[in-house]
């Protein structure tokens, strides 16, 4: 018997419609904070942080893999936000979408400057050279997911993180990634297919090599 109640919980409608991404700043949920910042009032930044810091920090942690780098990225992003507000053009996108764009760009810069760079050749390398100790340490689902997501090609990983974890609409995520919606959908589908098979393989490898 299909559990309709369960589906209704999971299929709850979003509070905001995708079309809001093109709303003017007057309907931007952050309009009040932006007005304060434009007046040089640091309470505006406090409001922005209360609303978005945890979410943006999670984005940076998922992209970079550690909290201290994510802290620095968030500090930089909010400093840029403070400077951006006086020249912010209302009507293009929500300010929170712009913040996602900034954090993503800062994460990309850091990833590119790392030595060695994160390989984007998929899960195969991980599975082939899977260190038993590493796999053992990755037994729990969260670690497996982190490993699998990090092994995705860069654009797939970004699309998945923005849409699934950050909850951006397809239009917002496509805007951040400078893609059209069809291209975004293609990236997402490839990412999820890779994850589905990759997670199964990693889980099998991990359980086989466990004592």
């Amino acid at each position: 018997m299909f559990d309709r109640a369960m589906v209704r919980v999971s299929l709850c409608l979003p509070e905001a419609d995708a079309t809001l991404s093109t709303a003017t700043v007057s309907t931007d949920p952050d309009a009040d904070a932006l007005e304060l910042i434009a007046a040089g009032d640091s309470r505006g930044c406090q409001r922005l942080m209360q609303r978005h810091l945890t979410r943006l920090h999670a984005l940076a942690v998922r992209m970079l893999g550690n909290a201290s780098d994510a802290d620095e990225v968030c500090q930089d992003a909010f400093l840029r936000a403070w400077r951006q507000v006086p020249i912010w053009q209302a009507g293009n996108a929500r300010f929170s979408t712009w913040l996602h764009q900034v954090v993503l760009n800062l994460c990309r810069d850091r990833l590119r400057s790392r030595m060695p760079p994160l390989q984007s050749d998929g899960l195969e390398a991980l599975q082939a050279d899977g260190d038993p100790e590493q796999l053992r340490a990755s037994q729990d689902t969260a670690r497996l997911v982190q490993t699998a997501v990090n092994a995705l090609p860069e654009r797939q990983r970004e699309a998945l993180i923005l849409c699934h974890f950050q909850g951006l609409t397809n239009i917002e995520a496509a805007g951040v990634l400078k893609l059209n919606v069809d291209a975004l959908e293609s990236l997402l589908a490839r990412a999820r297919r890779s994850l589905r098979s990759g997670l199964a393989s990693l889980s099998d490898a991990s359980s086989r090599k466990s004592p």
Partner: protein
Amino acid sequence: MNAMSLSRLRELLDAYGAESAHWPAHERDAALALIFASQPARALWHSAQALDSALDQWLPAAPDAALSARILAQLPIARGAWRSQLAQLWSDLGGWRLAGPAFAASLALGALLPLLSGDSQRDLPDEDLIAAVQFIDEPLE
């Protein structure tokens, strides 16, 4: 509302997962209708939900509370912002709601203190009296 095909639903679930909030708004109703009406559609949805559940296990820790303070500390405060900071301080102190009665109370206390402090002050010689005594005590030239 246009009906959705099973293949389109598969594409939708493959890309966006089982959460309807992540689906394109214009396709949401049709997708829901198909899931409620079709057993194969529900099987696809359950499969997508299983992957979502695994992904959702990856929850980064919330940022340290000190991060907010560090971010605020690095902001260049613009000219004129001292007014808003003063307003913030005033607001933190309770504004007129608290400061008004406190001011009135201090005025009243200032007026009452001399009366409540007993007669000792009144016993002290007046400044004019002291000056007069000094004048008298001065030797005539």
